[in-house]
């Protein structure tokens, strides 16, 4: 396999900008890798080698001609299949959208194109991003490159596994309750959920509008920073996007300094319920940070106890409404039942055939939660919990600059292990969900391997809204400490995949 694919994005950027490699070479190397391993990993739902190479060739031509280029021009990337692309189908992992080619590009996709980044393909996800394992993808699960029998996390397991298996140096994910961070944790990669509104959601097929946020997936913190700086920014098409700039994440990632920073350990997200190896690595990182001059403080977020309950009311409520448009009238699947095909029957038959079990489960939950007579008890109470969680964070950030917790209670579980137990699946996201409810930024970075199973563990960093830069500062510094301890990048411990 080409050495190119193992390089960090920041290294490839240097090679490209100094014309030591061409974008076509870099892009082709990743396409070759996909051809070699993706039959087993199944990161992609759709690959676009021709258009990726065409973009790459165009960038190479411009570079040769001395035209001004974006710093990331020519660097290929994978995009989660819930972002609209005009040149590739967009399914959101659902049969109901199978074959649909959108008429417009998502704002983030348009930014990638404007930067001259070849798009390698569209990555797998749980249907409409509902899940923590990709097992709810209508097109089959993705596999964890560390152990193909295990899940790569979800919903963004396609993006995490693509980056972890060197099929892409960078990928775009979306995070509603942990869909970027959990996959990063279990695949030994980096994933950031930026502050709500930092990245435009225009063109992201909505799961829960008030929770969804697009973010970068990469193999190290600086790479994630490079990507967040490309995709962030105000967008008039997204009223909830933040008007102000959050500054340069790349600069923050280059600070490499945690001296004097107060690192808050969230009491409720440690100890019981967390796999011993996960907890052990977490404790070690606290020591590393302390040794580097950070102050470790304990904070308490008592309302987190209700976070999952609140999340599983707000998310399905919004999703039930967001998914109403999938009715066969204007786009996507249309199923015409036998007999008199009235519009109601066509809509019902299409939704019956087009949606998978987890989607139906959440639509029913959400419809119920919003129903007259139940609204106050369910949706209303959940919104109150949301406020309480925000207050918990406010109090915690009064004591600490950055909060930390394990990203997930366990390492990657086996495919099928939790498929029949929705509650067990939902509990995976216990540490990641509060950030979405509060709109604050969160990042998961590799945190060593668990002794009991040798699988990667993640540590989550959280910062106040708009303070994404703190995540990159602390994340990059901690990542460096890990590499010093372990002797190499965490991803380099991953076993070699069988190449076909």
């Amino acid at each position: 396999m080409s050495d190119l694919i193992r390089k960090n994005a920041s290294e490839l950027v240097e090679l490209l900008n100094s014309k030591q490699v061409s974008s076509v070479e870099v892009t082709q190397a990743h396409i070759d890798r996909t051809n070699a391993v993706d039959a087993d990993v199944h990161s992609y739902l759709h690959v676009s080698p021709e258009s990726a190479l065409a973009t790459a060739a165009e960038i190479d031509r411009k570079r040769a001609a001395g035209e001004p280029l974006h710093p990331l021009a020519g660097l290929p990337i994978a995009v989660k299949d819930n972002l609209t692309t005009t040149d590739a189908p967009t399914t959101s992992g659902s049969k109901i959208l199978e074959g649909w080619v959108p008429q417009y590009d998502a704002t983030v996709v348009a930014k990638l194109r404007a930067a001259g980044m070849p798009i390698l393909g569209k990555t797998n996800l749980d249907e409409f991003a509902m899940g923590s394992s990709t097992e709810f993808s209508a097109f089959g699960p993705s596999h964890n490159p560390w152990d193909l029998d295990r899940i790569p996390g979800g919903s963004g397991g396609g993006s995490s596994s693509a980056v972890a298996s060197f099929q892409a140096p960078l990928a775009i994910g979306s995070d509603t309750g942990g869909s970027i961070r959990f996959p990063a944790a279990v695949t030994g990669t980096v994933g950031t959920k930026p502050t709500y509104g930092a990245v435009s959601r225009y063109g992201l097929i909505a799961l829960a509008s008030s929770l969804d946020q697009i973010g970068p997936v990469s193999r190290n913190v600086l790479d994630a920073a490079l990507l967040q700086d490309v995709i962030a920014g105000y967008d008039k098409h997204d009223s909830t996007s933040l008007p102000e700039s959050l500054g340069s994440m790349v600069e923050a990632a280059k600070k490499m300094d945690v001296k004097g920073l107060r690192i808050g350990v969230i009491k409720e997200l440690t100890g019981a319920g967390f796999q011993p190896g996960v907890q052990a690595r977490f404790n070690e990182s606290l020591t590393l940070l302390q040794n580097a001059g950070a102050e470790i403080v304990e904070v308490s977020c008592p309302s987190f106890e209700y976070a999952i309950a609140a999340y599983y009311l707000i998310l399905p409520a919004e999703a039930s409404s967001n998914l109403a448009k999938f009715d066969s009238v204007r786009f996507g699947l249309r199923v015409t039942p036998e007999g008199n095909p009235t519009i109601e029957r066509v809509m019902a038959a299409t939704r019956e055939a087009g949606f998978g079990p987890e989607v139906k489960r959440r639509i029913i939950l959400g419809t119920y939660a919003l129903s007259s007579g139940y609204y106050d008890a369910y949706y209303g109470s959940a919104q109150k919990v949301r406020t309480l969680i925000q207050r918990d964070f406010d109090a915690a950030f009064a004591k600490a600059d950055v909060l930390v917790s394990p990203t997930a209670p366990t390492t990657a579980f086996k495919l099928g292990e939790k498929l029949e137990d929705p509650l067990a699946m939902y509990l995976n996201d216990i540490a990641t969900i509060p950030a979405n409810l509060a709109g604050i930024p969160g990042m998961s970075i590799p945190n060593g391997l668990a002794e009991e199973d040798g699988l990667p563990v993640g540590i989550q960093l959280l910062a106040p809204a708009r303070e994404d830069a703190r995540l990159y500062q602390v994340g990059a510094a901690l990542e460096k400490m890990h590499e010093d301890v372990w002797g190499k990048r965490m991803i380099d411990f991953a076993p070699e995949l069988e190449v076909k």
Partner: protein
Amino acid sequence: MAKDELMNYEQALAQFEVVIGLEVHVELNTKTKMFCGCKNEFGNEPNTNVCPICIGLPGSLPAVNKRAVESSISIGLALGCQIAPTGRFARKNYFYPDLAKNFQTSQYDEPIAFEGALEVEVPSGNKFNVLIERAHMEEDAGKLTHVGGATGRIQGAEYSLVDYNRAGVPLVEIVTKPVFGAGAEAPELAAAYVRSIRDIVRALNVSDARMERGNVRCDANVSLRPHGSEKLGTRTETKNVNSLRSIERAVRYEIQRQAAILAKGGSIIQETRHWHEDRGITSSGRPKSDADDYRYFPEPDLVPVQPSIEWIESLRAALPENPAERRRRLAADWGFSELEFRDVVNAGLLDQIEETVAAGAKPQSARKWWGGELARVANAEDKDVTELSITPAQVAELASLVEGGKINDRLAREVLTYVLAGEGSPAEVVAARGLEVVSDDGALIAAIDAALASQPDVLDAIREGRMQAAGAVIGAVMKAMKGSADAARVRELLIEKANA
């Protein structure tokens, strides 16, 4: 219900108190739609003014049209409402193929304007203070055309076509509180109220306000209760009442229909009803109970609208004259009798007369032409008088031609026909068609002599002071000269002849 089963109107009023409530939808005349940049235009090819947002493609997001908010605030202010310092949009969820997202983005518990009042005068001269509950912003749905059915209704149609050009057009829905005490004048009050709203939005220039195009649409709620009862009766909501006349007829019909049912001991079904202009009846639509569950919840894709006090006050300062105050001013300026003025108001002629007077006509002349011949023509052509192709300036010109003796009334009516047919201004028509009155004494004397030949006694009668005898000769002269004689001059010449 057959017409002969209705209760006699007076009898219905004797037995029941009428309570009405009106919901008026005003389509704003903004350049673009409520939540996207598509043109807001009537009459274009179907599905040409559409984009991913207004047809609800996956991933698209709404963004609020500031101009629409401004228009809504102006309407609220003109209705004496308070303007909410912060107003949220909400989703009203229901499946219907004309609703692209299967939810309507509307306002629910936080309307932009609330608690207003409007003084409405009915033809008798009675005035009612109609309390406004709220005015809120929302988007229109697309337009369905049912093909193959007998009546253009969905029932029995072979298929239906959807035009999304109207989807997302900004609407303001103005809702009254229940209106009590109008008694027999409830139907007139309903129509007068809608006319007032129409006049206000037209004066504000926020809507084209053409009822026949659906720019102003009214749903009329009617309920009856026994005199003295505190409890409101069950109401019906009659839709599809697209002219002032039909509002009045529909309300009257519902009063008589409901009274007949209640008097027989029956009960009213809470439902929407459709008005059939052709048959003059309402028919049952769909049942509508308070349990109708639209699963409203705050629209998570939009941030709240928070108009600044400065903005609101600048809009308040720019409000045009209140139509009721304007009526008082014009009544004083014009010097019409109370009855004349009321007729003018009821015929909706204030604008025309005011502009005609401004163009130099005497108020009485302006009233005479607009309220007489032009109203007759409009009525015959089933048009609104404002839709006739004649300008107030042309009417003023016509009046001045009559007053200057160039033409007489009969010729003026003929001139009007040609002006309306597009032959030019009154003066141009008179010149081109040679329609001036004949005041050439030679021709008139010849005609007088011819007339006197058969009525020789007339001159004696005039000499004896019986002037009414002149009429016969004047009439004969007019007839001989096909109406183009200057009647005043004929009279003068006749008197000269008698006294010669």
